[in-house]
């Protein structure tokens, strides 16, 4: 290693796992937690709310309205306002991202269930399915492609949005951006952007795979 600034690869090798807080590996782990929790929590909360909105139609307009407003709020001021409640913790980033996820997933659940053809629903009733069994074995599987499409949007945008949290010191890989800005140096920015885009692509790929495994009939129908 010479006297000049380290090259990209040297910088990566030196900072990948320093054993201290703030190594790239450390930040990657934080980033995964802060993006995965909102994706999963958003889905778990959107499912019952979406189901309720389908069951009681009047509920849908107000729910969608509230989440449309929430979705329009920029993340940084929301993080800042939440600090007084949750402090400078990962939760300050996780909670708003969960709400953004719900704003995308609730309509996806409602649209997905709306895509169940009436004759299919009636066939299930005629076959003696109880409402719960009909939901789990007929309606939810048919809704899966639409819900997963929403989940892909949520996954990719959550992964990229976590980095804004760096401005309150909780940004996962986004911390590389603030570090690079305070001490002007390109490699951390490049590594940060590359890893975030890579994470997003992997998440997206896994969801596409999940869709293939969960809805084999979609491909079977296309093949015939």
């Amino acid at each position, binding site marked *: 290693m010479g006297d000049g600034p380290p090259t990209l690869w040297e910088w990566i090798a030196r900072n990948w796992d320093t054993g201290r807080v703030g190594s790239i590996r450390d930040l990657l782990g934080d980033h995964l937690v802060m993006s995965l929790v909102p994706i999963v929590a958003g889905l778990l909360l959107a499912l019952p709310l979406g189901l309720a909105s389908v069951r009681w139609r009047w509920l849908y307009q107000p729910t969608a309205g509230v989440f*449309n*407003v929430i*979705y*329009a*709020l*920029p*993340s*940084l*001021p*929301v993080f*800042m*306002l939440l*600090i*007084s409640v949750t402090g400078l913790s990962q939760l300050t980033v996780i909670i708003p991202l969960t709400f*953004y996820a719900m*704003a*995308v997933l609730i*309509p996806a659940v409602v*649209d997905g269930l709306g895509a169940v053809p009436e004759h299919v629903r009636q066939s299930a009733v005629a076959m003696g399915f109880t409402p719960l069994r009909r939901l789990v074995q007929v309606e939810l599987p048919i809704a899966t492609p639409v819900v997963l499409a*929403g989940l892909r*949007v949520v996954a*990719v*945008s959550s*992964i*990229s*949005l976590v*980095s*804004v949290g*760096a*401005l*309150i010191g909780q*940004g996962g*890989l*986004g911390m*590389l*951006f*603030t570090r*690079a*800005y305070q001490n*002007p*140096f*390109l490699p951390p*920015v*490049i590594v*940060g*952007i590359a890893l*975030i*885009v890579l994470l*997003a*692509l992997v998440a*997206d790929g896994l969801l596409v795979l999940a869709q293939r495994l969960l809805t084999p009939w979609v491909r079977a129908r296309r093949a015939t």
Partner: protein
Amino acid sequence: MSWLTDFFGDPANWSGPDGIPARLLEHLEFSALALVLAMLVAVPLGLLIGHTGKGGLLVVVTANLARALPTLGLLVLFVLLLGTASILPVIIPLVLLAVPPILVNTFEGIRGVDPELRDAAYGMGLTGGQVLGRVLVPVALPLILLGLRLSAIQVVATTTVAAYTGLGGLGRFVIDGFATKDYAGVVGGSVLIVLFALVVQIVFMLVQRATVSPGVSQRLITPKKGRL
């Protein structure tokens, strides 16, 4: 709550280049500039691709990829590469992130028009340009406006974050307040940005109500969401 009265009650916050009116105007200027530039690129391109049907897959794939790009990373990258002599390094990522929602929704809007409607327009003797201008655009308008609205959400948020790299606007109160532990500034600035975003939403809803033909707005459209 006392933070709010501290912030909004301080007369020093209401005048000068770092007062609320000046910062509000800056935020509006940067957001509007980025949105208009993005619109000038994305709307014609979306119309062209939707109308000719060529390059659609490319648009969708690119837009999905763009959603993965981290705002803060792009801002820092361009500022480090181009310096802070002008606002160009900040405007580039703002526009870059504002283009995909408009492009995708314009494209999807045009492509989604009922083919029978399109054929009927041609059958009436309209030229390609007339079909686009008199039939396809009015029918696709709700989706085009949705794209603009999502893009505006994106731009207002990104302009806020851009205060970190030295841009003016309402983000200054938040970023500077956080750096100097001036929590009245942080909370006051955050509330201002939230209100600003809500007003932008309301304006877009009013524009939609005023411009979309009533014959069109009765039809159900499925919003395409996606935060970039």
